[in-house]
């Protein structure tokens, strides 16, 4: 009984060490666990696949570097898809680090020949949260007279004929925050809205997907991995899924240990009480 009770007193450092191993080993030696495609990813891929070469989309990067682990694989996979189709992307940043994240995302595409100002542009960060979204969706050039690279936005060919969200084919956002503000401000422009979300926030976005206000969502690291599978281009998302599986299994094992210990302690306590009563 005492051994069972001790299962509930494992030192935090032991948990941390085992978790490091559970995450590191699959990263170094992938297990190759099969990844099935969820309905959200399938739907989102279908929506984004309707875009044609030359179509313009606004892509809002609303995550900081700290939240990138969950959302960045989705962003990379979607960028690969859209740039591969010849879609032209107007990037905006909804977090202070957004413009720098955008620069790092577009670097390989720029090196491969995508032209700044023609195939994509980085308008930078606009302070104000939801107010900023409302503002640039209404009048892009007024909200951003100058882009992140100090060009006059009126001189960018990609923005010819684009005054706001009503002039693009789609709005795509990746965020570590709620999707509410995007839905509230962009639905009025009657363009499809697609979101990339972190795992913990995605349940709050389900009603919007169900109501059709969000045309599709990608959920967490798994969403990124599934999108990579649909693209037939496994990347960082797929590589991280084995580690996530092992991490989840380890946490579940610890929860089971803790509950065995809890039940054993309660049982021992109940027996002790009965003994005392006698």
């Amino acid at each position: 009984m005492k051994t069972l009770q001790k299962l509930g007193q494992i030192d935090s450092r032991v948990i941390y060490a085992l978790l490091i191993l559970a995450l590191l080993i699959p990263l170094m030696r992938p297990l190759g666990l099969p990844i099935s495609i969820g309905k959200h990813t399938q739907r989102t891929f279908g929506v984004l696949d309707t875009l044609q070469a030359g179509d313009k989309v606004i892509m809002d990067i609303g995550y900081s570097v700290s939240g990138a682990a969950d959302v960045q694989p989705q962003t990379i996979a979607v960028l690969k898809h859209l740039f591969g189709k010849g879609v032209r992307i107007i990037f905006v940043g909804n977090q202070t680090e957004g413009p720098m994240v955008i620069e790092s995302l577009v670097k390989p595409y720029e090196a491969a020949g995508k032209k700044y100002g023609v195939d994509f542009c980085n308008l930078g960060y606009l302070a104000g949260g939801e107010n900023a979204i409302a503002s640039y969706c209404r009048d892009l050039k007024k909200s951003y007279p100058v882009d992140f690279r100090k060009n006059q936005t009126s001189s960018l060919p990609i923005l010819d004929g684009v005054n706001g969200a009503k002039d693009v084919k789609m709005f795509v956002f990746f965020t570590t925050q709620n999707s509410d503000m995007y839905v509230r401000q962009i639905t009025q422009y009657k363009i499809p809205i697609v979101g990339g979300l972190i795992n913990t926030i995605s349940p709050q976005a389900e009603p919007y997907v169900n109501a059709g206000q969000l045309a599709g969502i990608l959920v967490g690291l798994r969403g990124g991995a599934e999108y990579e599978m649909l693209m037939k281009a496994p990347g960082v998302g797929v590589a991280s899924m084995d580690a996530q599986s092992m991490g989840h299994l380890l946490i579940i094992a610890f929860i089971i240990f803790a509950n065995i210990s809890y039940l054993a302690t309660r049982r021992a306590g109940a027996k002790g009480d009965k003994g005392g009563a006698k």
Partner: protein
Amino acid sequence: MKRILPVAISAVVGLILLVDYFLKVPALKQTATEIQDWGLIVAAFALALAAVNLLLIHGKRIAKKDRQSIHSFILIAALLVTTFSGIFIGTRSGVFDFIFRSVFTPLAAVFYAMTAFHLASASYRAFRAKNLQAVALLLAGVLLMLGRAPIGEVIWKGFPKIADWITNVVNLAGSRGILISTAVGTVGAGLRILAGIDRSHLGSGTE
């Protein structure tokens, strides 16, 4: 006047934005746009104000010369080096890029990654089947973890289906309820502010 003027400004601004959003009155469009632009300017100033506030607070801590002073010194040094390299050398310069890629990015990633360890430890200590509600939470958590990770599907094909059911039925119903009640609450709170009943945003509480 000190009381009435701020309430009147709030009410007028709020009404203009509401009418513009819902009714699209052409005569109000320009005014609503200007008000929103003011909002952006105020937000930008708030960022600058936050930086000044940070300098003042940590400047005082450095002046105290206690054990924590070194942390404040590092914070101010990092703030100034990043700000000045961005403004004077450029955000696409090697210096700024180095700060972002080699200093800020790994540090920020470490902070996020640490939550996984705290989460593992917290789950171990908190997820105990003490009563029926705790059992429900425990089961939902474990089933979702198994249903969302590829290993769950390898163990049993039913785990992803159960996870989907929890997300699409149980979660959806709850989220929708919260969303609608929040919206109704927001309308109520908005009306109280517009009517001047709630003045907490002006720092004067409710009458």
